[in-house]
């Protein structure tokens, strides 16, 4: 069977055995009708692992992603958890048509990771970026919190919800930002939200981006130009050694750095941090 999903206005399709979809509850809120054109399609299959040559690997606490190419030049991503292969994603050069070869274990993780990678790469040229961030809404606008893993993005988002009236979580780990045709940047919920289930098909205009770092005090300052750009780049998923992907992401990052206020908040994990941040950036 084939299902269609819409995330930030971009439609993609997933085709596979019914069993795969029984574990895709997080995608249900993004379900959409069949579409003739999609930004990408993924087919989930069994079968033999592809032959490929490794280009680079990323090891994140035992979760390994190996990037490479088949002899025919197709991009490949292999996912390994705890030393065991969970799947191989084989893409067309433009990432529009892909198949995921799954194994017996970690199928859900492999499907989620494959769809995130494909979404980030297939939409990079469409003024769209998949962020590693927490996003909240307040007074009909969205605010995003960035930072390295363990900095306290989720904690800061929770403090806003706890102490500031009218704040809701948009996404806890992977919101999407899209620059619309009128040039305005919007934040969208997604089917990927890290450890906090928060799969909401909502959208708000993006009014502020905050880079967090831990400190024994609370202090916020505005970042401009190159500094703002440098704050955004590490928080956006991509494959920058692919020139076309890098070009697309650069355009989006440049537009955001030029048009959306970017801030640096050095903070404690406390109520005062949420208040000073909220009062400064929503003013």
């Amino acid at each position: 069977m084939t299902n269609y999903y819409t995330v930030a206005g971009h439609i993609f399709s997933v085709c596979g055995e019914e069993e795969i979809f029984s574990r895709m509850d997080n995608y249900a809120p993004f379900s959409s009708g069949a579409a003739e054109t999609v930004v990408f399609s993924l087919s989930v299959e069994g079968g033999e692992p592809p032959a490929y040559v490794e280009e680079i690997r990323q090891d994140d606490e035992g979760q390994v992603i190996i990037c490479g190419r088949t002899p025919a030049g197709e991009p490949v991503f292999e996912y390994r958890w705890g030393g065991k292969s969970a799947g191989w994603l084989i893409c067309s050069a433009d990432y529009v048509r892909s198949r995921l070869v799954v194994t017996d274990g970690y199928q859900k993780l492999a499907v989620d990771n494959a769809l995130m990678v494909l979404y980030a790469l297939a939409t990079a040229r469409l003024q769209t970026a998949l962020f590693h961030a927490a996003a909240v809404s307040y007074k009909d606008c969205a605010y995003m919190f960035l930072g390295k893993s363990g900095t306290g993005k989720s904690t800061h988002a929770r403090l806003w919800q706890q102490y500031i009236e009218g704040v809701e979580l948009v996404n806890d780990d992977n919101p999407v930002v899209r620059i619309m045709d009128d040039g305005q940047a919007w934040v969208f919920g997604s089917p990927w939200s890290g450890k906090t289930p928060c799969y909401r098909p909502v959208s708000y205009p993006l009014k502020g981006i905050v880079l967090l770092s831990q400190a024994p005090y609370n202090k916020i300052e505005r970042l401009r130009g190159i500094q703002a750009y440098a704050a955004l780049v590490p928080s956006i998923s991509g494959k920058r050694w692919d020139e076309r992907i890098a070009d697309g992401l650069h355009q989006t990052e440049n537009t955001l750095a030029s048009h959306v206020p970017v801030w640096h908040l050095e903070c404690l994990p406390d109520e005062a941090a949420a208040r000073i941040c909220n009062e400064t950036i929503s003013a």
Partner: protein
Amino acid sequence: MQIKSGFVLREVCGEKVIVGEGLDAINFGKLLSLNETAAWLWKQAKEMGDFSVDDLAAKLCEEYEVLADDAKADVAEMLDEWKQVGVVE
């Protein structure tokens, strides 16, 4: 001397910046800001592939009104910085 593979000249908020994007430069983790002249020299160096201080100083003299000795000193200083940051080898 040559520009290391993977480094790209980009325009960020109206300024010229070198970023590491290629496979060999993906962990650069910095942005190198260039003024207009340095950005122009970067493009010349990229076109030449292999270049020396004298090559770039000569280019600089062709394009801008500058004394040969001054051009050489400026280019040498700039290349020292680029070497230290690690974008040329």
